[in-house]
């Protein structure tokens, strides 16, 4: 699977751009602030119906423009897939596949699997559990459309339940019957999400360990562990057990919205005990494991977006990683870098085709490509 051609209209700092891409490596060089990352985000938007950076839709529109439009021509298992995304203020965001708008945007998730490795991914290791739940959800949503539906259902009912808990505290009036309804409605999607995350973590941690061994070149043992209160008790029990606490706190205290995916080195949390280098290796291994899990489960190579990845990597590890990415199990890859030489000197020795682009103030130009293109 790969993106063959991309057209951007008034997307972030691009007024208009039409670029043809390589099914192998696509490297975007240029200074910071020129729009390299924005281009990756455009690709991500077409696959996941939203910005990778959690931006509101209105902010992907170019400054002082009326709308934005992205058009991607993908090749999926030999077949052309035209995907168009449109955003305009006060209008419903639309996503079209082959000219037909989706009724629900979530139906698109998983068609074009994608993995984004960004500099701020270190949050995965240093921040609270929400970032790691999002990582699990991102992967599972691309794998299984039912997962995303059940998760959205759970989240909506949870919001309503919490709103009710707040209102009950404010008005000093209890409506236990309605609270019971929400509790019961949470059970089915909650248990489903738990089972899926549990199965995911088991499968994922093995793939992760393989990658971590390759990337870290080190002997220390790493581990991934799924943490959920549902491992010990059914959600039904947890909700009943925590009822008084929930009423006091005015929010739902137990459930899959509190899950975590623990990241360990030598049995200790990475957050506290790992060095910078270990963290970087850990992160790359996490993301490549996500990639591999998506690839083997879906039977297509996802698109891989590497934003500024080589910046803090020594030349030896850059070469090693590029060699890995040049292998057969990887498909189309987008790389951004402030220095062209770092990557471009290594690419010709790999068997994969490539295209090199220069990005300047919202303009992209092809500067070189592999002979096979």
């Amino acid at each position, binding site marked *: 699977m790969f993106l063959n051609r991309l057209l951007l209209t008034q997307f972030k700092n691009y007024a208009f751009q039409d670029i043809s891409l390589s099914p192998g490596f696509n490297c975007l060089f240029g200074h910071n602030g020129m729009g390299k990352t924005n281009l990756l985000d455009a690709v991500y938007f077409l696959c996941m119906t939203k910005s990778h950076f959690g931006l509101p839709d209105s902010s992907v529109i170019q400054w002082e423009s009326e709308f934005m439009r992205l058009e991607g021509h993908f090749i999926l298992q030999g077949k052309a897939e035209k995907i168009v995304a449109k955003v305009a203020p006060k209008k419903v965001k639309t996503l079209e596949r082959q000219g037909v708008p989706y009724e629900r945007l979530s139906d698109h998730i998983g068609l074009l699997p994608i993995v984004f490795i960004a500099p701020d991914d270190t949050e995965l290791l240093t921040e609270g559990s929400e970032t790691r739940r999002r990582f699990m959800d991102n992967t599972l949503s691309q794998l299984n459309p039912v997962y995303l539906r059940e998760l959205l259902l759970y989240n909506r*009912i949870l919001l*309503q339940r919490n709103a009710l808990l707040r209102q009950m505290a404010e008005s000093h009036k209890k409506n236990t019957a*309605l609270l019971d309804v929400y509790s*019961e*409605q949470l059970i089915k999607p909650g248990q489903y999400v738990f089972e899926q995350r549990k199965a995911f973590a088991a499968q994922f941690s093995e793939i992760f360990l393989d990658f971590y061994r390759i990337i870290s070149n080190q002997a220390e043992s790493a581990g991934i562990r799924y943490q959920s209160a549902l491992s010990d008790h059914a959600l039904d029990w947890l909700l009943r057990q925590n009822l008084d606490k929930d009423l006091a706190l005015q929010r739902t205290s137990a459930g899959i919205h509190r899950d975590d995916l623990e990241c360990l080195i030598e049995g200790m949390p990475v957050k506290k005990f790992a060095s910078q280098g270990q963290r970087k290796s850990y992160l790359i291994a996490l993301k490549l494991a996500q990639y591999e899990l998506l690839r083997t489960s879906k039977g297509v190579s996802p698109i891989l977006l590497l934003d500024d990845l080589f910046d803090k990597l020594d030349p030896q590890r850059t070469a090693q990683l590029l060699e890995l990415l040049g292998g057969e199990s990887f498909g189309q890859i987008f790389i951004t870098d402030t220095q062209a030489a770092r990557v471009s000197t290594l690419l010709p020795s790999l068997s994969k085709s490539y295209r090199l682009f220069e990005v300047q103030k919202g303009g992209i130009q092809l500067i070189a490509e592999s002979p096979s293109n």
Partner: protein
Amino acid sequence: MNFSSKLIEGAVQAFATLPGIGRKTALRLVLHLVNKPVEVSEQFAEAILSMRQNIKSCDVCGNLADEPVCGICSDTRRDQGLVCVVESIRDVMAIEDTLQFRGLYHVLGGVISPLEGIGPNDLNIDALVRRAESGSIRELIMAISPTIEGETTIFYLSKLLRGKPVQISTIARGVAFGGELEYADELTLGRSIVTRIPYKMQED
């Protein structure tokens, strides 16, 4: 727009407060009335005023009514034991248009959504319970939109009505009624009411 007349301007402003009417359209309507005999305006104003002053909410079902009890509830040819529970008055009109339903209605006035500040007490629920307790109703059809909030409302009502002498059914889910009941095409909507299914409460 600048008007030479404060009277015209006042009327334009009044029309423009209506949904879907911009200032341009409002001006066209006002000029139309200006060009017609004064009686036309009198009848127009009288129709609006008398509607607004006299329109009632049916004591039984919450539908719009001229009398304390609406035309549907007081129609003895309709099946008094079969009640269709809907969110809004517009849903009543949509279902009436199908000509497939000969029972009565109960208008809730919305669905339960604490996020939007709508709790069970804000809806026409107590009256529904009283109707169900009276013994005159055999079956309640929940024709509520298949959103999460709609599901919650049906679930809540069915718990509230447990032990009351009524059967509860829902209109078939898979039916594509594209979100809002009022937009459903008449045929599908009509059929889904005819082929409704008994409501199964989640295990508790």
